[in-house]
């Protein structure tokens, strides 16, 4: 029992034949081989598998492949802007927002979703946005700091290049062939 779906993954159109009950998480990791999206619980409780589905953050362990026809999916592998780190990635490097790094891809995708919506979040808004992403290493302080740094950098770049904001400020919309 397989179904044919066409998706846009990290900017690139793909046609896949998969069982409709296959989880998006397993589709990405096992079928396509993109293991940057992590499995922490498989039950939607930890946020490690967060990806962007049609621009919105979702736990990919709770999405079935059968729902994906025509979907636009962005994973951690699609976050870089060509050879350059996305400002969110750069900020996490700079601020020490990753330790073991296992929750990091999910947190970066959630951060991107937050900043796509709100380029100037308060600390409370950042804490709230990330409250579904568990991290056992960092105590969150450096993560929150990294989100603030990324937000500041994005605000700065929007001031410099106002046109970039209309396209979501990021990369993934601008770089259709990053893979």
């Amino acid at each position, binding site marked *: 029992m397989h179904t044919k779906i066409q998706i846009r993954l990290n900017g690139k159109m793909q046609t896949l034949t998969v069982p409709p009950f296959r989880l998006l998480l397993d589709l990405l990791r096992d079928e396509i081989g993109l293991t940057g999206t992590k499995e922490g619980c498989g039950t939607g409780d930890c946020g490690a598998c967060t990806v962007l589905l049609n621009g919105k953050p979702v736990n990919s362990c709770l999405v079935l492949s059968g729902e994906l026809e025509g979907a636009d999916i962005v994973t951690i592998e699609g976050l870089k802007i060509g050879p350059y780190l996305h400002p969110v990635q750069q900020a996490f*490097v700079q601020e020490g927002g990753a330790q073991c790094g296992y929750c990091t891809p999910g947190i970066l995708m959630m951060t991107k979703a937050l900043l796509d919506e709100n380029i100037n979040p308060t600390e409370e808004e950042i804490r709230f946005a990330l409250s579904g992403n568990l991290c056992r290493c960092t*105590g969150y302080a450096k993560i929150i700091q990294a989100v603030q740094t990324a937000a500041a950098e994005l605000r700065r770049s929007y001031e410099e290049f106002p046109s970039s904001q209309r396209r979501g400020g990021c990369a993934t919309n601008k770089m259709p062939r990053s893979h």
Partner: protein
Amino acid sequence: MEELAVVGKPVTRVDAEEKVTGQTVYGYDLVLPNMLYGKALFSTRPHAIIKRINTERAKNYPGVQAVITGADAPWIHGETIKDTPFLAQGKVRYVGEPVAAVAAVDEDTAQAAVALIEVEYEDLPAYFSPEEASKPGARAIHEDYPEYHKADFIVTSPLPNVCEHFKLRTGDVEQGFRKSDLILEQSFRVPAIQHAAMEPHSAHAMVDDSGKLTVWVPNDAPFRVRTETAEALGLPPEKIRYINPYQGGGFGSKGGLKVERIAIALAYHTKGLPVRVKFNRQETFVSTSTRHGAIVRIKSGVKSDGELVAREITIYWDAGAYSEKSPTVCIRGSLPSPGPYRIPQVKVDGYAVYTNKPVAGAFRGYGIPQAAWACEQHMDDLAKRLRMDPLEFRLKNIFVDGDVAYWGEQLHNVGLKETLLKATEGIGWGKTEKLDPKGFKIGKGFACIAKPTRTPTTSNASVLVDSQGKVTILAGTVEIGQGCSTMLSQVAAEELGIPIENTRMHPLDTDVIPFDSSTTSSRSTFHMGNAVRHAAIHAREQLAEIASGILEAPQEELRFSDGKIFLDNDPQHALTIGEVIRRQLGPDGVVRGNGSYTYELGKDVDPQTGHSDHASAFYMYATQAAEVAVDEETGRVRLLRVVAAHDVGKAINPLNCVAQVEGGLAMGIGAALHEELVVDDHGRVRNSSFLDYHLVTSLDMPEMKTIIVECPTPDGPYGAKGLGEPGLAPTPAAIGNAVANALGIRIYDLPLTPERVYWAIQAATD
């Protein structure tokens, strides 16, 4: 000392970029060619005889390659007591114990086949409390315990189900109590909690035609687990190879043979094909390991001026069904349990007790948090009865340089007092800045700890310098997220005078990397830091010898900086390191430096007295302070602020030091306020998911302030010692003291859930 170029600087993590781009391959991500997928069947009974196992239906299920039970994997392992079967042998001892396993062509098939295995049990009486299990007359959970192979230092007990009895005897406590002006006796409880590393457990294993076993697993001690595997299988260590993919956090859980043994057992039945076994989150919660639940009874005698005279402690460590690391947790957790204070008369009895619960093992802090929860709250209660300020009371008794600790060791380079003064200053101890808001009580508290490290141990390292001036570090320290790769790169870069970008860590493989004892016990910065430093110096000496010939200058006048070698007075004739190697050894030349470090003075504690004049290579000291607001109506504890002061010897990377402490605080806060692995009266874990087992989230974290105290340890690299574990050790006790300070009520059991605090308030007002 010359000024340091890289060491002591807040260098960005060397593994950060690959982690933020999703390129890092963790154990859970690893895919091997032609691999099979393994799943285990777990016991549903806490204590039972296996009457019969029927695997026929599973074996006949399409796509199944192997179905195995204990009979097919007749091996027993254990780090200090060989008591743990790879798969249950004739009986089960906890709900969640692996009983059988399947290897199949895919995960779904394996899972479906596991469900077809039938097991018939005959229940036995089960014990869920270490006090019950060790009462005279209790039935043995391990009937063969007396015959088990045990490490030399294991002390047995006439009490049933005790797998280790630690004894510390200093002076005469009874006489001490008689001489005291005040005696206080209390009992505290700490529940089991789980490591909950974000990456669940997994292992891959393969046996090749030559009989060589290869295991891919993010294990925190690849060499130690190789030894444990070799002893269990009866193989020479060279027939076993452990390869370490990246580890998504461990905190002590990813050591020893856990999921590994299921993968290994299956690999002997898959005709040379590799097999992967992944534990899901629930299996990770139940069938890997937990932190020890503990019951701590503490009795102290003090003079009316606050001088500690005597302290007696009895700790029951709930080992769960198998010994795992319980004996050493019992020893190293019980030894300093009377706290970092001068006490002339001390008696400690630590009992690690088998129960029919999930296996307890190593957990960041190794017994110190449980003891500190009791000792540090007890200290505050003593101070209260003495009508002394808790800070003054501690200052009167606290370890300072030159003190001889109650286990017989003279202490040096003790930064404890400085941490105590700085943490209490940071929290504004003794000052009331704000009035209690309506319905809330504000309180402050603090707690101190001293933590030893596993001693003696050994680290070896090599540093390869190539003809491009690039450096590869071969070190057996596992990057578990703590930042060892960055720290070791800083050390190598410092000694060779190269930019840190020119270093890289070699992947960890026991066939290639020189021996290291373990990535545990906060030992790596000190031991492996020294080994890499020695290796880099060895390489530098060889480079200096070559360069001195080229530059026609004495070696001792050569300087290494920015990837170049030059004479101080002649920097324009500098040679790059790569050039030096090319000139002498050609374009493919490599200089290899080797380094080794063992803390030679370390001595095991005497099993009868608990004494040692060098129990630990170094001690980690810390004080943490907390401010809380307790909602009187609901019992909810809101953490307002925490201040953590830690003596690290020397901060090789101040940024990562703060990161370690902040992460430790988060774990300590979780343990203080809501974490508990709940086991019901049928031995079942009731909260084996993140939905039901609450980790702290970004919304729960208070304002944190970390203060790094540097009291250099002469034996450490640049004066550094360890830091990984203490971050969480005093946290619950500091919060407990703050709650008691707020409410005037002492709560003896963790965690401080709203419910528990509410009932404590009700009981006090009745």
